């Protein structure tokens, strides 16, 4: 489980490259299937107004712990070899990456299913709260974007 919260902008492909390099030297070296997801900030708020920034508040300590636990549980359930999670916190500009999830497995089915379920579970089970900033005003987002 390679899990990290990031307070500054990051490059998802660089995170994936570093993760892949690590896998090559470990027991997941023979994982033939890799599924990735990258989420970015939309340029518009929920009400359609141009978004200045998205802010993500989290519960330090609990959020890292929850992400690690969710990753471990799902990796075990799906029988996958390795999981990567990178999640931004703080103020994020439109177009910037918020989240990267990657799963390495021996087969495409477990890799794809675990990646999707991990993403969905993070959205509902890790203590993150989004606030949309429009025209200098912040508005908490009530729930998640539809699937």
């Amino acid at each position, binding site marked *: 489980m390679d899990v990290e919260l990031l307070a500054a902008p990051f490059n998802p492909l660089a995170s994936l490259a570093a993760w892949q390099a690590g896998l090559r030297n470990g027991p997941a070296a023979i994982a033939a299937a890799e599924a990735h997801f990258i989420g970015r900030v939309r340029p518009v708020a929920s009400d359609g107004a141009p978004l200045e920034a998205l802010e993500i508040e989290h519960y330090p300590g*609990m959020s890292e712990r929850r992400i690690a636990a969710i990753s471990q549980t799902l990796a075990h359930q799906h029988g996958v070899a390795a999981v990567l999670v990178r999640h931004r916190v703080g103020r994020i500009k439109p177009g910037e990456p918020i989240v990267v999830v990657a799963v390495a497995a021996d087969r495409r089915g477990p890799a794809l299913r675990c990646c999707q379920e991990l993403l969905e579970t993070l959205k509902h089970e890790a203590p993150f709260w989004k606030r949309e900033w429009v025209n200098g005003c912040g508005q908490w987002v009530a729930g998640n974007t539809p699937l």
Partner: protein
Amino acid sequence: MTSGEVRVRLFAGLREEAGWQERSLVHQNGMTATAVWTLLNLGGTTPPATVRVAINHEFAALNTPLANGDEVAFLPPISGG
């Protein structure tokens, strides 16, 4: 954290409505998250159904008894990823 106390944390919208993010309360035997909510005048006698409780960084039930030194947090609806 001082033993004999319970630390209380609020996040996001709850934090802003209450106007504070962290408080300490004297621990009392059998104290629950619901009791803490009421004591701190967070609104009514029990948290709304959308609010979740965490004790020491794990989700917990409203009626779990709190121990000395516990950290209890009230979490508004999560919107992650």
